[in-house]
């Protein structure tokens, strides 16, 4: 079986939960566990939050984010697409979990959660749009 579905949200923080819930339900309907669904959905939350805050600089009322999901029995692929300036969030180095309180910034964990929770994360800029591709394999 092959499953696919997509959602477009207006790029405001109030809509992040919609993207989260959409991905969670999609992954569950494809037969994957609650834990995998949670990891995929939290990752999508983090990516959308990042796009809204940094990509669209909290000014995305007239902008959109597309969330496209595809899956078969062993593999989930979620592509998050936006129209902000070209930006690869994977260029940022991973933060150090052992950094002292004094030495660490307050933020910076969003994309790291995505890196850790997904099996593969890749970026491309195509058709004038940022595309972050999250992949998860059946354990």
């Amino acid at each position, binding site marked *: 079986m092959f499953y696919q579905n997509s959602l477009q949200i207006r790029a405001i*923080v109030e809509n992040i939960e919609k993207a989260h819930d959409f991905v969670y339900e999609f992954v569950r309907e494809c037969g994957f566990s609650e834990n995998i669904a949670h990891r995929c959905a939290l990752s999508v*939350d*983090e990516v959308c*939050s990042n796009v809204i805050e940094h990509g669209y600089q909290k000014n995305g009322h007239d902008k959109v984010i597309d969330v496209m999901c595809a899956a078969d029995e062993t593999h989930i692929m979620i592509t998050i697409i936006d129209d902000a300036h070209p930006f690869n969030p994977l260029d940022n180095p991973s933060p150090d979990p*052992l950094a002292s*309180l004094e030495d660490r910034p307050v*933020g910076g*964990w*969003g994309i790291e*959660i995505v890196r850790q929770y997904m099996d593969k994360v890749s970026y491309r800029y195509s058709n004038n749009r940022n595309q972050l591709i999250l992949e998860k394999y059946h354990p």
Partner: protein
Amino acid sequence: MLEVSVAGLENATLIEVSGRVDSMTANQLGEALSNPIDDGHVNIVLDLSGVDYMSSAGLREIIAALKKVKRVAGDLRIAQPSSRVMEVFEMAGIDTLVRIFASRVEAVESY
């Protein structure tokens, strides 16, 4: 929306938060942690038993509150995080910065 309750105890201020901590609600968590510190109550216990979802927006508020409370010689201690929240704490090394307790009573009595 988060539900937040704050109780001033003899040794500590107990902040109980319930709901989903994400980009929409994290500022509520930040205010709940910040307000008692501003009022001079610097021994804080954050009970997270009612939170089973926390994104990096929540981590940011916890790290910011920890920096703030340490500057005034106080502390932030956490009680009863769910396994999902604990997993994110461990990923970010929050568990190396904050004392985490299995029960609220233990956390309060640690002061």
